[in-house]
């Protein structure tokens, strides 16, 4: 801990080492992306990597897309500071994958081409449902992007000794620009390889640190927990639930609400759904999820060692005092264990994590806009694939620019909280419609529109009027108070509302065309008949 106090006390390690390891990562991924660009020609190549990835490859890429900075830095920090309650995130984020495995992945792969809008428009009125699907996709992606970009600012402060807000803004812009370049050049194929490289580095980094921590405590979990508890200043409270949530009745309900959003949000995240289209068949989609569950499960188990390890070896005091706050627990632990070199590696991994997730979000959002809004809503499907992909590339630049601006504005916000909101929006706006559409014969356009727009609006309105935005010292706007909804997490209300609206909209209207097409959709979904196969080069 004394080592941290030296050297100015605001940063750790050697910025030059951190930066150079990161630049090596950038150089390697750039080469990979440019190589991938050689075989990116058609729309299917650009959006879905020609459906040429194997299940295991895609599973690792999904892990790369899913394990964001909020998972790596956020959860490790939450466990280090708040103990057991941080671990609750890990569990929700993992269990959620069963929804994707059992209900969504394979059927979606068989019925869509590139986006969620494809699945909905299968049997409903194309233009309105595509517009709705694109709206919610863009909304979820935007919340998620904000979280990643905001995280980048804090990380920079810690690792590169860039402390002025202007300097951090410059780095955020650099991060965003680089990612847009990856997407423009490499398309889905390049992006997927970036995810694979990043996921491998992330797991390697987490594994090294966790094993190092374990060896320091001679593989004695109880010993690690005991020391974390005694160093925390809070005693056994860090080992028990309740430190972060549940100081009062509202806090408890808030936590249940958060848990619901976590477990139901994953299978509605557009950048995860889109990954299922990069494999040649439903069987490979299933294998993807199995691999993803393995990799993601392993990672979240390791967060336990990272978080409690940081609490025991670094101590909550220095973590809370560091520039990135609780987000700096993992980097500080790396410095404590392996000095400047391990810190440099872990910092590079953390940067790579942010970069890769941003790339995945940008390509998803731009695909949704170009494929659903431009090609099918505006041009009514009469557009050539080439110009659709051109629009996707332009959109990627616009979304990249927006997320840079948003990221600079959101710099300093709690990233785990922002990600939780993205999950709540995904669970409210997307999941009910996806499930109804795949399993309910009567489901129709009105139901889909009510569910998507109703769920999205309910969720966003409740967030705006929640204590997370105004009224409390911990709020986004501390000085004003216009909140009337007591919970910071809207899922407990907005998810049931969305399911209910989808049901009501459907039973109150009839759409024989949608019902008639259900036979075709169901047969295709369950058998894969006529689904798109891999592009043959």
């Amino acid at each position, binding site marked *: 801990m004394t080592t941290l106090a030296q050297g100015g006390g605001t940063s750790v390690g050697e910025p030059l080492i951190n930066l150079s390891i990161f630049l090596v990562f950038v150089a390697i991924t750039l080469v990979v992306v440019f190589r991938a660009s050689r075989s990116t020609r058609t729309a299917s190549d650009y959006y879905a990597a020609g459906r040429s990835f194997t299940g295991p490859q895609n599973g690792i890429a999904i892990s790369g897309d899913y394990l964001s900075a909020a998972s790596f830095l956020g959860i490790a920090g939450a466990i280090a500071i708040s103990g057991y309650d941080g671990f609750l995130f890990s569990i929700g984020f993992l269990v959620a994958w*069963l929804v994707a495995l059992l*209900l969504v992945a394979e059927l979606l792969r068989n019925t869509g081409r590139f986006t969620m809008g494809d699945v909905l428009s299968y049997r409903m009125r194309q233009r309105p449902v595509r517009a709705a699907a694109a709206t919610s996709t863009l909304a979820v992606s935007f919340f998620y992007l904000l979280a990643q970009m905001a995280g980048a600012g804090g990380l920079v402060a810690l690792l590169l000794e860039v402390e002025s807000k202007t300097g951090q803004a410059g780095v955020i812009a650099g991060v965003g620009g680089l990612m847009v370049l990856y997407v423009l050049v490499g398309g889905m194929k390049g992006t997927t390889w970036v995810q694979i490289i990043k996921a491998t580095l992330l797991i390697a980094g987490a594994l090294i640190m966790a094993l190092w921590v374990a060896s320091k405590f001679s593989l004695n979990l109880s010993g690690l927990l005991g020391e974390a508890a005694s160093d925390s200043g809070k005693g056994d409270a860090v080992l028990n639930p309740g430190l972060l949530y549940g100081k009062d009745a509202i806090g408890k309900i808030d936590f249940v609400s958060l848990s619901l959003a976590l477990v139901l949000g994953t299978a509605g995240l557009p950048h995860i759904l889109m990954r299922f289209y990069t494999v040649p068949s439903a069987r490979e989609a299933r294998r993807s999820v199995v691999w993803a569950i393995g990799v993601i499960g392993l990672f979240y188990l390791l967060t336990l060692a990272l978080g409690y390890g940081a609490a025991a070896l670094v101590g909550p005091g220095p973590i809370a005092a560091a520039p990135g706050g609780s987000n700096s627990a993992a980097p500080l632990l790396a410095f404590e264990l392996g000095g400047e070199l391990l810190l440099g590696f872990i910092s590079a991994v953390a940067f790579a994590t942010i970069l890769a997730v941003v790339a995945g979000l940008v390509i998803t959002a731009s695909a949704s806009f170009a494929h659903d809004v431009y090609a099918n809503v505006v041009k009514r499907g009469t557009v050539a694939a080439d110009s659709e992909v051109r629009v996707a590339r332009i959109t990627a630049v616009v979304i990249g620019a927006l997320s840079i601006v948003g990221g600079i504005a959101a710099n300093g916000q709690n990233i785990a909280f922002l990600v939780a909101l993205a999950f709540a929006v995904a669970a409210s706006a997307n999941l009910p419609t996806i499930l109804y559409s795949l399993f309910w014969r009567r489901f129709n356009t009105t139901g889909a529109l009510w569910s998507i727009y109703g769920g999205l609006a309910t969720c966003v309105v409740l967030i705006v009027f929640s204590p997370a935005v105004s009224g409390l010292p911990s709020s986004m706007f501390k000085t004003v108070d216009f909140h009337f909804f007591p919970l910071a997490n809207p899922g407990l209300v907005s998810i049931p509302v969305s399911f209910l609206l989808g049901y009501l909209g459907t039973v109150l209207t009839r759409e024989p065309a949608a019902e008639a097409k259900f036979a075709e959709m169901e047969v295709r979904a*369950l*058998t894969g008949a*006529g689904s798109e196969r891999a592009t043959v080069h």
Partner: protein
Amino acid sequence: MSTIEHPRTGGPSSSADWEQVQRSAEFVELRRRLRSFVFPMTAAFLAWYLLYVLMATYARGFMSQKLLGDVNVGLVFGLLQFASTFLITAVYVRYANTRLDPLSERIRSRIEGGEPR
């Protein structure tokens, strides 16, 4: 180097034909097998997860009881969520490989029958 996109080809073109497949004994059986597995399993893991969440929220005394050294009930319960997730994944894959895939492949090849690959 040519790029071949497979559009939605293969299979019948009229909706009546799709309905015929949907009504066939084989397809009805496939749907039954899928739904009879995934629906109860989803209900089960969601209930198990919610039980955990509610216990962590409202039964803290119980979750804080120590079992082995500093390892308490809450931690074991949490780790069991990992174990059950891995287990359900393995069971589903086995079920899908043996009970779903052969049937769905049979129906698919019948629908797409004769289409050159």
